[in-house]
């Protein structure tokens, strides 16, 4: 169970390997990776966050996932700073005996992280900068976990 907030890139495969090393009771690992998506003319993406609160919010979300599903291991990594199209933004990984728990917990982590962790995205392109709006569907996604 770990949370990391960092400027540096990370290696999904190495993270999965570290999560599961020597853990033969794990049968299923689900990962989600978020990438900087260019829907047209994106030059860069600036990720701002709230140091201190970010780590606490992510740890609270992860603790909630651990209380709801039987997880052998979990991990949340989220970057901040300036990123280019195609760059990795974040990943979550969940490891469990069976696939159902791993899938559900990963989706739960993503849904909460999207609208409850203090990150904000500003896109820069040819027309200047634009703060990415939160979407109603992200807020609505939380309803299924109540």
């Amino acid at each position, binding site marked *: 169970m770990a949370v990391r907030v960092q400027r540096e890139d990370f290696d999904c495969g190495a993270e999965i390997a570290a999560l599961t090393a020597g853990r033969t009771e794990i049968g299923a690992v689900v990962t989600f990776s*978020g990438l900087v998506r260019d829907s047209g003319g994106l030059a860069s993406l600036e990720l*701002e*966050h*709230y140091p*201190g*609160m970010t780590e*606490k*919010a992510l740890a609270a979300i992860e603790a909630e996932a651990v209380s709801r599903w039987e997880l052998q291991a979990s991990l949340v990594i*989220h970057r901040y700073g300036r990123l280019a199209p195609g760059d990795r*933004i*974040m990943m979550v990984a969940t490891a469990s005996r069976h696939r159902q728990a791993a899938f559900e917990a990963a989706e739960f982590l*993503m849904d909460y*992280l*999207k*609208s*409850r*962790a*203090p*990150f*904000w*995205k*500003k896109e820069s392109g040819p027309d200047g900068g634009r*703060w*990415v*709006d*939160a979407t109603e569907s*992200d*807020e609505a996604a939380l309803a299924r976990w109540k």
Partner: protein
Amino acid sequence: MSELRVRYFAWLRERVGESSETVETGAETVRGLVDELSAREERYALAFADLSAVRVAVDEELADLSAPLAGVREVAFFPPMTGG
């Protein structure tokens, strides 16, 4: 009167023109603080013009405008979060 650290993120930071400041306030709730700041200078009034687009954290925990300020060290204002 008490002394608070107030932080701003994303476009709230840009509109206020500060990422962090120390504020002397007599307000009893976050909403009172918003009103005080908005009355003080135009840039605050502009930043807080649409409170439905503003989220609040009190001592690094999500809160709402009615949250009391007694004993609080830090209040943060920011738009809805867009992580992931």
